[in-house]
């Protein structure tokens, strides 16, 4: 971990306004913002670690826990909501054994919700990484995850 962080910091000077670009690179490199890394970044740019956390928690692009290889994004937009998005979310959660915002211990899946993925006509729907799964029903969900 140390080495990977050092490599990232190499291209920065340690200025306060470098915080967001550094965090973005850390997020890309590690898939999330590990605590020890945030502490090191705080020291590097000489800001309190609480400020690093404040900034990181403000932006949705940053995660504090490791992400699974597959991000499951269940839509919670209006259309999907009306057609039972919450049951879909429950079902996915039950199958994966995790709650919204969590990642499976084998780091395979992370379960999230999103506002609207723009396929309202095909609701309810979800995305796994970049692929959309539309017109979901329990059976279809089970099939998707049984592969």
């Amino acid at each position, binding site marked *: 971990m140390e080495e990977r962080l050092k490599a990232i910091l190499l291209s920065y000077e340690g200025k306060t306004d470098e915080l967001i670009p550094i965090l973005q690179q850390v997020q890309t490199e590690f898939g999330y913002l590990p*605590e020890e890394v*945030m502490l090191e970044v705080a020291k590097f740019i*000489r800001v*309190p670690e*609480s400020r*690093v*956390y*404040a900034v990181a*928690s403000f932006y949705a692009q940053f995660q504090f826990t490791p992400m699974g290889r597959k991000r499951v994004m269940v839509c919670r937009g209006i259309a999907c909501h009306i057609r039972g998005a919450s049951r879909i979310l429950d079902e996915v959660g039950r199958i994966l054994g995790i709650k919204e915002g969590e990642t499976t211990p084998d780091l395979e899946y992370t379960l999230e919700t999103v506002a609207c993925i723009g396929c309202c006509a095909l609701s309810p729907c979800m995305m796994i990484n970049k692929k959309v799964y539309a017109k979901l029903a329990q059976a279809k969900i089970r099939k998707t995850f049984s592969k």
Partner: protein
Amino acid sequence: MDKVTLTINGLKITVDKGMTVLEAALRNGIYIPHLCYHPDLKPVGVCRLCMVEIEGQGLTISCQAPVEQGLMVKTENPEIDKVRRVAVELLIVNYHADCLTCAQNNQNELQRIAAHIGITKERLERLRPPTKTVSVDTSNPFFDRDPNQCVLCGICVRTCEEIQGVSSIDFAFRGYNTTISTFGNKPIAESRCESCGECVVRCPVGALTPKKFQQPSREVKTICPYCGCGCGIYLGVRGNNIVSVRGDVDNPVNKGNLCVKGRFGYDFINHPERLSAPLIKRNGEFVEANWEEALELVTRKLSNYKGDGFATIASAKCTNEENYLIQKFTRAVVGTNNIDHCARLCHAPTVAGLAQSFGSGAMTNSINEVSDAACILAIGTNTTVAHPIIGLQIKKAVQNGAKLIVANPRKIDLCRFTNIFLQHRPGTDVALLMGMMRVIVDEGLLDETFIEKRCENFEDFKDLLSSFNLDFAEQITGVSREKIIKAARLYATCKPATILYAMGITQHTHGTDNVLATSNLALLTGNIGKPSTGVNPLRGQNNVQGACDMGALPNVYPGYQKVNDPMIKSKFENAWGCRLNDSPGLTHIEIFDAIHQGKIKALYLVGENPILSEANAKHVEEAINRLEFLVVQDIFLSETARLADVILPAVTFAEKDGTFTNTERRVQLIRKTIEPIGEAKPDWWITCQIAKRLGGKGFDFLHPKDIMEEIASLTPSYKGISYERLENGGLQWPCVTGEHPGTPILHTQAFATKSGKGKFIPLGYKPSAEVPDDKYPLILTTERSLYQFHTATMTRRVEGLNILRSHEMVEINSKDAAALGIGDGERVRVISRRGVVEAFAKVTDVSPLGVVSMSFHFSESPTNVLTNSALDPVAKIPETKVCAVRIEKLEGEEDRSADYTQR
């Protein structure tokens, strides 16, 4: 200050320029609702409640609007009301109000605002109740954080950053989820929070509240009993119990700020373990006695030891009046100058060194000048830990743009703010400072006019300096020459520059040389005798300055008047009506040596615990066991008191009147707040009783103020000081007449030396007495914890402080630890040539390679069993900052690595 006149609600008011409209209104009794404004903090304008209408500017946030000549302000109109109403209702919707039990001292701002705007019951009921409830953070031993009652004004965040310089909290997440959070949203006890409670006193609502809160029935203004900062406090009382403490905003030292000990460390006063009756040892057991019996025994015994077979250890925790009496008793009644106190173990080199160069051994400038310095050199001081309120001044200076140079073997917390961190090897201060001076002279950065006009002995000094090169400095200190050069330039060119130092400078066999190196540096650059400059020794105990001033030292009477000066001697003989001994007495360590040798047979020990505080403590314990008679006067049964023949129960600072002199020479009143616990008596009363019974004259005092009158009559620097004057605030000595305003800055016109000149002293580098070798490869240095004080007789009786720090931790660098196979929190044994101590390892890179450090707060791990009692030849201070040790891991022992809240 320029004035401007503006009109608020038709009322013409005149205020200082630079104020905001909100401040102008509040100052003149016009209430404008406000939530995120706090007088101590920069305004941020987030709550929008302070909205007013300014003619020509429309609706304006008054906490950020500067006053201007002729402004026409309206604080109320329907439009303003609407804005405020919406803002307040939004807050209330998310607020779990619990007004009856709110501990915010009847000062919940939200209640006041709601009342002002007139939020009706019907309206409140229509607002839906909060939908989320978050758990309360109760992890801190002194206060709770309830996010449900937080209005997100950010006052705590700004306090922690702007005032405390800690920044343990900040706004996190966003929108509806916004919350005040530590790093990682963890309990506050796991953050870098220092538990100062500054945020708690400023929170306008019930979100941050002290755990133990009782409304006091009355408050008494007095001074904090812990460190040498000497902060003003108000003690709150109910019945005979201390129930609250608050900072005194009018005290120039702390302006209301307090550290964790000062704000929360008072449980010791009413503690059940307080000594409440005299104790006499009979057949090895202490039995309670009455005062008559105890005093009779003490005087009968002591009458056998008049003269130099007797010694007194006075107390830097006691008042000036008490130290004055203790030395008067020792000199006038017993007839010996064998009196000393713990200043010997901390700042004797300051007294000896600065007396040589400046003629006066004390802080040259005042605490509140530090924040205006352009450059601060903090050497051998872990200021934020040992002098927290002065630490705040340093952080404020940095915020004001000051350059900070920290010189310390350990990477202390202040390093977060440094421009240059000089991490020199322990005991190499002279080499480091001489290196800097060499640069200053070579580059012509010295203040020649100042040297010419106000100094002497410069040529000798310069000759010596030329034999001193940077290669040598670099090699000895381990600091790169580039850094030494940079630091020298910074210090010499950013004026005014001030030097702060503490025991990292003094506790060495060459402590006096270290002190002289700092004074040379200040003279060289003319950084003395002006505001925000100087050489400023930060003294440890609440009244260690006073105890020195009062002559609780073997060679001087009060006011540093020499015992072997015949004129002075006859002055005191006349005043005290007795014959006096003109041979200087023995110093602290020498007293214990003399006891060992059977030369001193009886000891009167007041409020001191040498078994833990003295270097090579085993030697001290052996000595004490050889005494024929030991009287201890204390508030608790300390480790040393256990060995006494008679223990006389004294009172704490809260149970008596008197004065303390803080580290900046400020004499301040302490006031009796509660009645003595049990049969305990003030130290001054006890000393008078013993003295009178031994035939002493001039001990018939009814009140400490009469003692101060006698002090003033005999001590030139205290001549103008009286209780009457002190009622209106402290006075900094020298204060030479009844009208003299006191002296915030020393040496402005002339130095206090005989010639009136500041004296350069040529110095050479001397290594520490004990250096590491194969058998003892590590250097042990000593330090302090913010949460304990000295030998912890008081602080260990404050439950919360022990939650924050309960045991000794040996700080060790991660590489050294790895080489020894030691993990964080594991139990280790530390071994020196003199003894063995067990403690827990704390693996941290605060400690440099090859250096470990320990505090001396814990009797279970008595660090001073390890330290070296080799003495500085001039000041006779033992070298507690450097000795050689080795460390071994203890297998199969308890592991404290999970105690991540210990610091």
